[in-house]
């Protein structure tokens, strides 16, 4: 029973090894990848179902009891994120063969793709701070390979910056974990939480907390640590961009959510108060970045930053409504960001350029793409009844309850600007006279459109079916507000 927990990690990892062997036969690899991804998705659904019916599942690897061995904890939050990850992975893998070149496919794209999924799932599942670092490295290693896949001049140049900033923050992560180990003598998250609570988080622990926040903030691209993000995310293939945009920064934000709802919750006036300001600045600067450019890929890439701002805002406010809003927004944003990256990839492919000033009247040639973009812009900005609206509504409700008026205004303003920044693609690229000087011969095949439509359908369901989804999310927020539940379930006291 408890072995279910390891399946979301072990299946992609094995799948990655299997497809490495069939690499030279592309057709077999494609079919096998799709099959294995669907198996992984189904397994994720089964594990999610059993977690939601029977409660948290804990795997103590090698039967080493909790504080001593490595443990994997599948609670409602992590398993829901794993399910979302698998949904995105499935969409990406159906999109991939139509978007990648043959050279990229035979250079082990699918292996790295599976390793990335394994790393992300592991980071969500682990209940051990050092293991979190290890899984971060697993997913980063895969991402280093994916970002440079193809080996263009631009890709190489951007990937070196990407690797360097991640390596730097990883080393700080190890140092922070070592210092924390020196201070509390354990790396099991539940036990750290227990011991930090005992000494009521004295000065040194708060310092370590800020160091950890710096590390996760770099990975999650928060203000002022986001400067590395926009450019490296647009240079690889759209599939890779979508996986990065949807998963990598969200692992960072998940770590912040976990660490600052479980371990460091005793000095909120220092840590969580700062989060709210950082959230506001992330929203403003991210959206200014998105407005400043005419490169459609860069617009979407910059839009990651305000989304992260919204999620961290809920963690900073830290009450029932705000936390539910954060979790809702986290899941919503994972799905819509991957859909948008894939969609912009299609637009750049059919238009032959990602420069907005060079395209107009695309709607006459590609009506379906145009309307998909229109819907996704609405979902992203949070127009009711779509999913962004539910998340933002809860966040704003939480903010107003906590008397955080300034951040409420910033959040509303930046939502409006987010809508404009994405709508700009629609207005400038799709509206207007039919451009007869160019002949748009490239067809967007069904294989490119269907995964995007699928992701948007899931996103619409998250919004329209909020009544069905919301109770579970609310349950998670309640669960996060009481760290004792997690500690008791892991340490079995």
């Amino acid at each position, binding site marked *: 029973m408890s072995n279910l927990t390891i399946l979301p990690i072990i299946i992609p990892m094995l799948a990655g090894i299997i497809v490495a062997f069939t690499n030279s036969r592309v057709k077999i690899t494609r079919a096998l990848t799709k099959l294995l991804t669907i198996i992984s998705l189904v397994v994720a659904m089964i594990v999610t179902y059993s977690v939601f019916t029977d409660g948290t599942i804990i795997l103590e690897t090698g039967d080493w009891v909790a504080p001593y061995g490595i443990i994997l904890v599948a609670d409602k939050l992590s398993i829901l994120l794993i399910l979302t990850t698998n949904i995105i992975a499935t969409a990406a893998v159906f999109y991939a063969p139509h978007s990648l070149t043959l050279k990229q496919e035979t250079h082990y794209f699918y292996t790295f793709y599976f390793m990335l999924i394994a790393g992300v799932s592991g980071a969500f599942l682990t209940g051990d701070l050092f293991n979190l670092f290890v899984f971060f490295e697993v997913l980063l*290693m895969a991402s280093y390979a994916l970002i440079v896949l193809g080996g263009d001049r631009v890709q*190489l140049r951007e990937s070196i910056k990407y690797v360097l900033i991640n*390596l730097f923050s990883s080393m*700080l992560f190890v*140092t922070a*974990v*070592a*210092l924390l180990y020196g201070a509390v003598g354990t790396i099991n998250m539940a036990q750290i939480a227990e011991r930090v609570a005992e000494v009521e988080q004295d000065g040194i622990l708060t310092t370590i907390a800020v160091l950890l926040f710096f590390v996760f903030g770099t990975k999650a691209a928060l203000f002022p640590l986001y400067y590395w993000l926009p450019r490296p995310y647009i240079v690889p293939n759209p599939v890779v961009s979508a996986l990065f945009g949807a998963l990598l920064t969200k692992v960072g934000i998940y770590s912040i959510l976990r660490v600052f709802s479980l371990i460091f919750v005793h000095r909120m006036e220092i840590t969580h108060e700062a989060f709210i300001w950082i959230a506001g600045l992330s929203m403003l600067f991210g959206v200014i970045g998105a407005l400043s450019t005419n490169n459609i890929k860069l617009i979407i890439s910059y839009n990651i930053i305000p989304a992260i701002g919204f999620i961290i805002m809920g963690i900073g406010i830290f009450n029932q409504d705000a936390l539910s809003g954060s979790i809702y927004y986290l899941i919503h944003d994972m799905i819509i960001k991957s859909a948008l990256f894939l969609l912009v990839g299609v637009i750049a492919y059919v238009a032959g350029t*990602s420069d907005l000033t060079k395209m107009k009247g695309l709607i006459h040639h590609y009506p379906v793409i145009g309307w998909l973009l229109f819907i996704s812009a609405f979902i992203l900005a949070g127009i009711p009844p779509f999913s962004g609206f539910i998340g933002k509504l809860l966040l704003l409700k939480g903010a107003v309850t906590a008397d955080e008026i300034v951040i409420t205004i910033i959040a509303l303003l930046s939502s409006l600007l987010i809508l404009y920044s994405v709508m700009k693609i629609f207005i400038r690229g799709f509206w207007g006279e039919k451009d007869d000087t160019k002949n748009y011969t490239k067809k967007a095949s069904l294989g490119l459109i269907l995964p995007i439509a699928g992701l948007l359908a899931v996103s619409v369901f998250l919004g329209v079916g909020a009544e069905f989804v919301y109770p579970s999310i609310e349950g998670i927020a309640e669960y996060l507000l009481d760290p004792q539940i997690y500690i008791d379930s892991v340490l079995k006291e």
Partner: protein
Amino acid sequence: MEYIILILAGILFATAIYNLLQKQLLRIIIGTVLLSHGAHLVILTMGKLKRGQPPILDDAVTDYTDPLPQALILTSIVISFGITSLLLVLAYRTAQENKTDNIEEMRGEPNE
């Protein structure tokens, strides 16, 4: 003993950051290597530097060596070793393709 090692780790961090702020790619990579050495020394020191005791956890045993930092440091060394070798290859290819190893000249142009 612990203090000496921690000061050494601090010196390593300082030199690492000095090197990371240089413009030449190879120097930056040396900076990351030194940074990981510093981090590893911190891990090792956190378990207290004792020798000759067995790593046993038992109520009767009062004097024991903490085995955990050694497990952590080993994992961390392997990871940083792997990333450093990847980074070297990446830097070599980047320098070849971009015809420069100066990070200042790798800013990029709009809409490429």
